[in-house]
């Protein structure tokens, strides 16, 4: 994990150092004298050799101090703390809803595999996945907010409960419905993989009913790949909702980093990238530990 982390830091550093624009030029703007640019250069340590700059970068990471955003002069650490709650308010319900809906549907189609129901659901899933997420958001926002007025078109407040029950439901439902198709397809294949195993044949041979086999034997075994998949989805909880945040004007982390890209606000992008990569690694580690509880046969080396 440590070498990987070092790799991530190096990748981000060199990406912005060699391919990115000159920070002093971006900071100073279009009309700046050479003295101003030089002053900014000195302030940021850009006149030092690159290994010293890498040292500065490392210190920033370790002390959680990336300084201020270039454009809004807001502390980068405060951007994290103030934007993350809004993002989590919509992404965590999305994740829970998706898994909770996809599991029973996948079980139902896996039970009826090969029948008309199975093939219809799968065809609908493929067609649903072929339409861009953008279209779902645009049309959903238009119908449910503009036309029917069931939800506010966009907005956010300071009150968590008001956000969760007034502003968040529409984006949550839209995203969960869109996520449903790929999840269902995936979980169905997990279930079908399991039903090929010997223990299923044994269970059938001893006369267990098909639903009981699915519920008692297949479900528990299929939880291993399901858990892997959920652990792959969890990192998306932090910025995965950027499109929803842009459409519904939700002041979250995803929208913030999109704005940072448009403003060439390097510190914000770098900080978010590095910290979320670390978080991703920690989540994967936690998932590995969790496996041993779900499946005692798996042992960590």
């Amino acid at each position: 994990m440590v070498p990987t982390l070092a790799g991530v830091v190096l990748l981000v550093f060199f990406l912005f150092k060699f391919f990115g624009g000159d920070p002093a030029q971006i900071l100073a703007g279009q009309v700046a004298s050479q003295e101003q640019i030089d002053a900014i250069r000195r302030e940021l340590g850009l006149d030092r050799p690159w290994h010293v700059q890498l040292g500065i970068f490392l210190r920033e990471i370790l002390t959680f101090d990336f300084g201020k955003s270039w454009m809004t002069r807001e502390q980068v650490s405060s951007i994290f703390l103030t934007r993350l709650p809004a993002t989590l308010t919509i992404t965590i319900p999305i994740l829970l809803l998706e898994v909770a809906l996809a599991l029973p549907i996948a079980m139902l189609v896996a039970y009826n595999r090969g029948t008309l129901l199975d093939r219809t659901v799968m065809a609908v899933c493929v067609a649903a996945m072929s339409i861009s997420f953008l279209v779902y958001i645009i049309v959903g926002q238009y119908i449910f907010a503009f036309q029917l007025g069931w939800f506010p078109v966009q907005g956010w407040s300071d009150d968590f409960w008001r956000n969760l029950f007034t502003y968040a439901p529409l984006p949550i439902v839209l995203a969960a419905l869109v996520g449903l198709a790929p999840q269902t397809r995936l979980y169905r294949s997990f279930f079908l993989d399991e039903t090929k195993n010997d223990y299923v044949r044994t269970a059938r041979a001893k006369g267990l009913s098909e639903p009981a086999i699915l519920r008692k034997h297949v479900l528990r075994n299929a939880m291993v790949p399901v858990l892997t998949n959920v652990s792959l989805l969890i990192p998306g909880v932090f910025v995965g909702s950027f499109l929803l945040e842009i459409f519904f004007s939700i002041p979250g982390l995803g929208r913030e980093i999109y704005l940072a890209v448009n403003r060439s606000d390097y510190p914000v992008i770098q900080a978010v990238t590095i910290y979320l990569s670390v978080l991703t690694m920690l989540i994967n580690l936690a998932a590995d530990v969790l496996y041993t509880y779900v499946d005692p046969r798996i042992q960590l080396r």
Partner: protein
Amino acid sequence: MAAVLDITPENAWLALWRRLREDRVGAVSLGIVVAYLAMIVFAAAGLLARGWSEEVGVPYANPAFVGERPNFEAQLAQRAREKRGAAVDLTDVDPLAPKYGEWQKRTAELKTTERERSTTLPWGGDRWGRDVLAKAIKGSQVSIAVGVVAALCATLIGTILGAFAGFYGRWVNDFLEWVYNVFTSIPSILLIFSLAAVLRSGAFADLFASGIWTVVIILSVTGWTGMYRLVRAEFMKHRSREYVLAAQAIGASAASRMFVHILPNVSHVILVQLSLLVVAFIKVEVILSFLGLGVPVDMVSWGTMLSEAQTELVIGKWWQLAAATVFMAVFLTAFSMLTDSLRDALDPKLR
């Protein structure tokens, strides 16, 4: 006995073609994909949708199948054009007044022709009165081309790195695994955003400013990892098989064993993964173009069409949204179905 031995194995690609034709869903999907490809070739050659950027209709011209419906936006534009009469005389206060004569002379040299604008277009018009159908065709060309080219680039990177890691093993494998881990531990959307930020404001911004290469680079740099993993696993499996050892025994070089002997035997895995990448990349390209991080403004893709459609829908002009959605959904559905059929046709277990 001799008769049995005489049977020559069926050519693998011919067998694939035969199985694909037998699969009804696969055959139909293939037909649709080929039709799209023909459309793209015609569009690229300038035979189709050449004038997509010309303002051939009134603003928000109604689709022909809807017929005459009140079009307030077009009436407003018309009124504004008629009102544009004599400007207020500013000669006494305008510091640029001495230049008026020169400008008038220059204006006289240019000829403007007001072209006849039709009130209906086959699939409606957009805000400037451009033909939405032509835009959708041109947009298909750009979106599919970006997806396919980026998928080919990602496949190239993934295949070469995967081949080296799987074939040589040891420190080459360790090093490439490290690179793989680094790229996969960064959430892909953040890698995409970082690359977009760097490429639009960085040292190479001017180089890529016009054209689809920014998107292609972003997609292929972020998307090669899955291909790498698959190819690496296949090469590890194949490198000690008898046919590879036999090739080594007759003196085939490492490069020859990797790319002449092993590669054709794992090409079916690569082909399926490549098709999956095309679908995934087209979806990402659409989102990037929607956000303004994708294709440049003088081009049209399904993504830029959708970004215009968002505001149009609110005033009840739904046809651009419908056009982009239908063109994209039909292609991606057909392509996904084709990929599924391809996978089944290539699966040796199902033969």
